[in-house]
């Protein structure tokens, strides 16, 4: 076997390969999509999904799962189109408060050793409740600076693409290249030995949850920058999409094995799935089905690679 193509390398290239494959298929069916405008249209809504996926990844890094991130992005969106527009100071304070609540959740989960699934599940009700209280009927309006930022016209490459690359590189640096990122991933790998080594498990969990809250806030703001209005249910499907994105990007459920660049690519792949169907003239009824099929396909490929690895 060629020594250059190792199973390990194949596995880490899988997210990029599947994304490229899907994009190539779209370009083949509809060459006109291969343009600045086409790319922007297809990947625009991928930015908030990518941010939500990164938020989910922060929680998955420390072996937890966030079932409330979709509702959380929704409440951020609702704050964004109401308070942030009318009374910016209150809006910013509320968003900071949201991040603080996330950090507190991390503390609660760590101190009481609670299952994150249930706590974040409960929080999803709480977030949705707040969203309904803040914005009872769909609507609101977006702060102008946010709208202007998200619809920025950049030369050569659409802003959505540049933004995705920047975010991916930044998080990659933070989690994979810095000392604290390594510690956080180590806490996912073996929390007990990290504590033995003198790191505070509480602090790590709070930090990662706060990061999840931070990226959740960014996701909500990016979303309303594109949609210009919000409603309480706007991002509920992000919960499942974000988990799918992390897994698609090569992240694993336990052991702190994650890949920030992969997660962003995974989120964009899921976003492309919708466009792909449109170009194939398949009814949008199958959009979530296609996302599920891509997920299963990529997981199947990964299982094959793992099997090849074991045989060697």
């Amino acid at each position, binding site marked *: 076997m060629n020594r250059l193509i190792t199973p390990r390398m194949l596995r880490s290239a899988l997210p990029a390969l599947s994304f490229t494959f899907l994009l190539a298929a779209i370009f083949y069916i509809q060459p006109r999509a291969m343009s600045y405008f086409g790319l922007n249209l297809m990947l625009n809504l991928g930015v908030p999904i990518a941010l939500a996926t990164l938020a989910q990844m922060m929680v998955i890094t420390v072996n937890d*799962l966030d*079932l409330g991130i979709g509702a959380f992005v929704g409440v951020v969106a609702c704050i964004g189109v109401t308070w942030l527009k009318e009374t910016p100071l209150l809006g910013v304070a509320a968003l900071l408060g949201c991040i603080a609540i996330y950090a507190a959740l991390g503390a*609660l989960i760590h101190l*009481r*050793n*609670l*299952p994150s*699934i*249930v*706590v974040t*599940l*409960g*929080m*999803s*009700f*709480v*977030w*949705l*409740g*707040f*969203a*309904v*209280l803040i914005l*009872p009927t769909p609507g609101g309006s977006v702060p102008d600076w946010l709208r202007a930022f998200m619809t920025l016209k950049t030369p050569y490459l659409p802003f959505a693409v540049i933004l995705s690359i920047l975010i991916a590189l930044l998080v990659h640096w933070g989690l994979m290249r810095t000392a604290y990122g390594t510690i956080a991933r180590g806490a996912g790998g073996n929390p007990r030995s990290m504590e033995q080594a003198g790191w505070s498990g509480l602090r790590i969990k709070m930090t990662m949850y706060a990061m999840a809250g931070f990226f959740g806030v960014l996701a909500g703001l990016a979303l309303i920058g594109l949609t210009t209005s919000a409603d309480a249910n706007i991002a509920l499907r992000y919960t*499942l999409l974000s*988990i*799918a994105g992390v*897994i698609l990007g090569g992240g694993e*459920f336990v052991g702190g094995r994650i890949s920030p660049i992969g997660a962003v690519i995974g989120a964009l792949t899921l976003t492309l799935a919708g466009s792909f169907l449109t170009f194939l003239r398949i*009814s949008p*009824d*199958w*959009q*979530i*089905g*296609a*996302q*599920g*099929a891509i*997920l*299963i396909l990529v*997981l*199947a490929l*990964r*299982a094959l690679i*793992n099997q090849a690895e074991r045989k060697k």
Partner: protein
Amino acid sequence: MSTFLVKLREQPWLWAFVGTIAMWLATSLVTGAQGSGQVLSAAFSFATFFVIVAIGQMFVITLGPGNVDLSIPACMTLAGTVAMKLMAGSDGMILVGLLAAIGCGFAVGIFNFALIRLLSIPPIIATLSASFLIQSSAIAYNRGLRVKPPAALAEFTTTRIGGIPVLAIAVMLLAIVMHIVLTRTVYGRSVLAIGQNSKAAFLAGIRVERIRFATYVLSAVFAATCGYFLAGFSGGAALNMGEEYLLASIAVVVIGGSSVAGGYSNVPGLWGAALFLFLMVTMLNTFGASAGLRLIMTGLIIIVVITLAGGRKR
């Protein structure tokens, strides 16, 4: 008597029922004696559907960490739509519809487990990816049409005997059967053993994968059955009919006193928790709380319950 009380206090499902009674009494303060009977009757009709899916979810969760069935809502929707469309409102087809729904459940359960085994991925991911496909199939099959259920089925799901819905009585019997299955049969004991220590269970000669397979199929079949009756109860299958059941099924299992980490479960708590959740929403309603406040309270109570229960056994 005192030993009875001591024993009662040790039951994990006790608090769900205590909460239920407290909520009911609080509601009765506002509604009066006449109203409180109606509230209880309504609670039984809605709790029934929660209990059906929660039984399946509980067996899956009992299998141990990482075992959760996220495909329950999609499975309910698919079974409901397939059955409703097949019956097309005709009373003669009721049994055929039920069989079709159960067939959907079997298919979903087998598909779920095939993904878990063939791709060797965590069940959460497997059932999540499966749910995308299943939900899509339901959408494509149904095309947003709402087919009315057969009149006899609609009547059956809403009939009451002495204020208690017939369906609730049936599900209570089902709960008793499943309680015996969990605590007295080889299958149920195997599920508990796997949840407590799957390696030890394997070494003790339990066929772990076979039991897991049966459990995922069981969960899907229960979800499908619930979808069938819920569609009959609510005047047809809707594409979002399963939506709230994902969170509710997990919440009911947890509030009912089963361990989320698996290995320790009980069926009576499911009824207590399902009634509790419904009565809590009703109480907040009668006190005039808005929809937002009701959601916040529901979430906070789930968190408080798990925080209190989490400290009990580790």
